[in-house]
């Protein structure tokens, strides 16, 4: 456009650079902190010249926080949630969009009621549920005053309910978070934009429902799946309250929770250099995923709005 706004243009760039710096500052600062020895990091103010202790601190964080184990757990949890959600919702959305059956509406509504409800609001009962998957049966037992039976089992070393607890287990970390309608909703929205003629053409070509799903729908959903992989991976990786509750065994703890152990606490010296190194390590995987898969991530984020 023929428009001369030199001052505005300059301001634009100045503020942009400022904005980026402000947004990036915590990380830059953490990066510097992670390179300093403990003496420097506890100086006030902390020097802004990077030190040479980066690897040392990284190693300290790694060992102290048992990050190897925890990153693995985080990875398993995040991938599990991602894969679980995507598979469950692909099937669900396919069923809802491409079939007409009596309970479809009920299925649809009941699934979508969960759309906005994060695990945090139903945390307590979900925890109970995960603690004892047989909860429903147990409550029946209680109702019929058969509690003594359970006690008998319990004291006689025959653990019936024990096996069904999801505490401190990968399924426990993963399954309750798979119960969310967001992915199903997004896939449904996407399927609705696929021209019906494509389905009709496939039908005329003699494709069955599952053939259509496998050969047409799935390949077409590739980018959407990629987008959701990014979003759900980040979501899974960053979970906090749920893993905090469901894991008590340090071997099952996820990295974001485990970081707690390297933040300086009342008993400790202020090893902020190590804490920052640990934070950087733990945030790295999802940040990389987002940066490298930006295109899909943005698509996935922005599309649901439409």
């Amino acid at each position, binding site marked *: 456009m023929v428009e001369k706004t030199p001052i505005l243009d300059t301001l634009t760039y100045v503020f942009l650079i400022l904005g980026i710096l402000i947004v990036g500052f*915590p990380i830059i600062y953490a990066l510097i902190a992670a390179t300093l020895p403990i003496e420097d990091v506890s100086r006030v103010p902390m020097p802004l010249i990077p030190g040479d202790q980066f690897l040392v601190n990284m190693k300290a964080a790694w060992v102290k926080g048992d990050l190897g184990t925890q990153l693995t757990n985080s990875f398993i949890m995040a991938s599990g949630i991602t894969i679980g959600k995507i598979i469950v919702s692909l099937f669900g959305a396919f069923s809802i969009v491409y*079939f007409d059956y009596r309970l479809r509406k009920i299925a649809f509504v009941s699934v979508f009621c969960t759309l906005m409800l994060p695990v945090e609001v*139903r945390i*307590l009962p979900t925890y109970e*549920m995960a603690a004892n998957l047989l909860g429903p049966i147990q409550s029946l037992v209680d109702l019929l005053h058969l509690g003594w039976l359970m006690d008998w089992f319990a004291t006689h070393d025959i653990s019936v309910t024990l096996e069904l607890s999801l505490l401190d287990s990968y399924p426990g970390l993963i399954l309750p978070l798979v119960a969310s309608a967001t992915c199903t909703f997004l896939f449904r929205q996407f399927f609705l934009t696929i021209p019906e003629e494509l389905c009709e053409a496939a039908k005329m070509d003699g494709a069955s429902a599952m053939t259509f799903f496998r050969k047409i729908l799935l390949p077409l959903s590739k980018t959407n799946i990629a987008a959701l992989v990014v979003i759900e991976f980040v979501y899974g990786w960053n979970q906090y*309250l749920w893993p905090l509750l469901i894991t008590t065994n340090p071997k099952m703890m996820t990295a974001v929770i485990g970081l707690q152990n390297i933040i300086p606490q009342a008993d400790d010296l202020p090893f902020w250099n190590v804490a920052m190194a640990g934070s950087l390590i733990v945030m790295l995987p999802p940040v990389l995923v987002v940066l490298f898969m930006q295109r899909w991530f943005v698509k996935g984020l922005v599309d649901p709005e439409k």
Partner: protein
Amino acid sequence: MIKRSIFSNKYLPYLLILPQVLVTLTFFYWPALNGLINSMLLSDPFGLHTSFVWFDNFVDLFTDPLYLKSIGITGVFSGATAVTSISLGLFIATLANRACKVKAVIRTMLIWPYAVAPAISGILWLFLLHPSYGVVALIIKKTFGVDWNPVLHGSDAMVMVIMASAWKEISYNFVFFIAGMQAIPTSLIEAAAMDGASPFRRFWNITLPLLSPTLFFLMVMNIIYSFFETFGVIHTMTQGGPGGSTNILVYKVYQDGFIGLNLGSSSAQSVILMSIIIIVTILQFKYVEKKVQYTG
């Protein structure tokens, strides 16, 4: 909406929807029902002595000034977090939208905080804002002469958790605003320019009104975020303190339920939260229906 080209099959659709329904029933409906029941029970921490008390837990909550205060705190916290992150996101997006040539670069530089866990955001900012050695804290103390001490002062702690929470949401909002702006037909902006509107005018009179659906959507999403996902921020930074001044609702659920072991009250709080979310969701869908149309 129903597709007209459908497959007919007796069992397949049920089979396909089964995993979803199963997961939803087990980890949503059953717990939700349980939560509802629990909210009317009084129970010891071990669940061995329970009695049914109807709505006592709710009554207790709503007569408890601390719970009411927690509602207020949550309101202030969510409101401030949403307003801060949305306005900053909008501001940066508007700038980036002007800087056409480097838009992609800017996006890359701004997008990553989205991937940072709230808990980690809490740690990073705690390090910056800690009263004894945080740089930002130091700057605040030196330049503004404020006695910055979030360990002691509730308002400081509130500012601190808001900063940490808003920070990582900026990138989320930024992405939506940029996309929203790109969806506005350029011809509209051009038409306004020909009508004689300055860049500011165009922003106020055209861009902003047309972004209102995005704005509303982000409002809802940010509020949900600050209601729930910020748990990690609170937990790492203040544990609800000092003096309960950052004890937002979801943290209180955790504190009363898992630390205080008062399951009845905690469940009642969950039920209240659930109702809030359901209302927000309904509102959201109502509004989305009436979305402004760009062209036809």
